[in-house]
Structure formats: structure tokens, C-alpha cells
């Protein structure tokens, strides 16, 4: 029973990934990509990694996908404004992703209701992850911070002229 939940989530992940990479409209593809990431988060949860599942939802499906949404909205591709948004709200755009998300939610609820819980024999708790992260892996934290700083500087440098063009009154570099 619990094993089948994994296979359902795997099918959802595969289907939505293929859909995401074969769309022509970037916004529609993003919806499917978010569903794919949520499916992988459910798989993490089923594998007994709840902390990784939470991070997947918060950072991947939350922060990184929001970056994509921002850029797509900033570029404002194709025809403008209201007509496009009205087309996005048509049911055939969002019914399938909504169904997939409902399947994933039902899986999570099924896991919560079952007493034996996850399909993994042993759950790796967030406490264990934290102790390992700041114990033997503390150098990895430093490397990650350097990497994020490099990403921050790079993104600021690349985005700076784009920002200046939007407000030419500022002028100075």
C-alpha cells in the first residue's frame, strides 16, 4: 500500500517533467515544473527525509520558481496584458496541474493517516541532519556561503544595467 504511493508520485513527477519541457508557453511550463518539484518533495517525504522535502518545497518550488516567474513577467513576452491573462485563466490550462497537485496532497494525507508512516525503515530527522551539517560538514556550510555570495554578486552585476535602463534618471554607476 505505502509502496504504491511512491510509484504514483514517481509517475506524477515524470509526467509533469515531460509536460514542462515540451510546452511552448513558458508560464504553462512553469506550472508543470512546480508540480514536478512538489512530486519529488513527496518522494523525499516517503523516503524518510522530511527536512529535504520541506526544503524542496520552500526553496525549489518556492524561491527558485518565483525567480523564474519574475523574469517571465519582466520580459513580458508575446501579446500584452489582459487578453493573455484571460487566456491563462482558461480551465484547460490549469485543470491538469490542479489534478496532479490534488493527487500529491491526497498522498500526503494518506501518509499522515497511516500509523506506520513512511516507506523508509528509518527516518532521518532534521535534528540528525543539523548535527551532521554543523559537525563534520561545517566546511561545506562555508563553501555554500561563498557560492551564494558569488551568485549574489554575479546576479547584481548582470542585472544592474537592466535596472538602470528602467530608471534613466538615476544615471550614475
Amino acid at each position, binding site marked *: 500500500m505505502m509502496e504504491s504511493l511512491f510509484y504514483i508520485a514517481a509517475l506524477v513527477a515524470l509526467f509533469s517533467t515531460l509536460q514542462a519541457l515540451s510546452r511552448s508557453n513558458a508560464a504553462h511550463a512553469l506550472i508543470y515544473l512546480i508540480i514536478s518539484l512538489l512530486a519529488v518533495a513527496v*518522494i523525499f517525504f516517503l523516503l524518510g527525509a522530511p527536512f529535504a522535502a520541506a526544503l524542496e518545497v520552500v526553496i525549489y518550488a518556492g524561491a527558485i520558481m518565483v525567480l523564474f516567474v519574475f523574469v517571465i513577467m519582466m520580459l513580458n513576452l508575446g501579446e500584452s496584458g489582459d487578453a493573455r491573462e484571460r487566456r491563462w485563466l482558461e480551465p484547460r490550462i490549469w485543470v491538469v496541474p490542479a489534478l496532479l497537485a490534488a493527487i500529491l496532497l491526497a498522498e500526503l494525507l494518506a501518509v499522515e493517516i497511516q500509523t506506520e508512516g513512511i516507506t523508509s525503515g528509518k527516518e532521518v530527522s532534521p535534528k540528525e541532519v543539523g548535527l551532521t551539517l554543523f559537525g563534520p560538514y561545517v566546511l561545506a556550510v562555508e563553501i*555554500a556561503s561563498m557560492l551564494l555570495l558569488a551568485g549574489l554578486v554575479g546576479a547584481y552585476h548582470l542585472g544592474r544595467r537592466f535596472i538602470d535602463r528602467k530608471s534613466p534618471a538615476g544615471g550614475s554607476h
Partner: protein
Amino acid sequence: MAGLQIPLEHVLVLATLLFIAGLVGLMVRRNIIFILMSLEVMLNAAALAFVAAGAYWGQADGQIIFMLILTIAAAEVSVGLGLVLQVQRRFRTLDMDNANRLRG
């Protein structure tokens, strides 16, 4: 008790399929936003393999490598999307075949 009730191979097959989907998307699509999305899918597939291995042995190491991959993905996508803005500003297109010249 460590170990999974589902075979580890099945999770690894899923990760491989996701990775292949991302790789094919990366090679086939020419829109830079879809190329970045394919990169995300590939990184995510690698992370899935790490977490599955960590769960198989009941160790926390897999989730720590997952967090490192998350950091890499965040840094990569912020720089990549900055490049998207520059490409769109310079070439008025997102088609990477039109942006294949270096300035000499």
C-alpha cells in the same frame, strides 16, 4: 532498521529518467528559459539520487549533499536569469541560436 521498503534501484531509475528528460530538454530546446528549466530538472534528479542513497543507508549525509545542490541551483539560476535579461536586452530574442557570436 535502515533500508527502504521500495527497492533502491527503482528510485535510481526514476532519478535517471528525470535526468534524461532534463538532458534531452537541454539539447533540444533553444529558448534559454527552457534551457535553465532543464538544468533545474537535472540538478533535481541528482539530488533525488543523493537523498535516496542517504535514506537507503539511514544516514544524514544524503540530505546534506541535497542542501549543497540546492545552494548550487539557487546560485546558478540567479546568475542564469540575469543573463536572460541581458540576452533579451541585447538581441531582442530568447533564441540561443541567435546569440552564438562572441564579441571579438
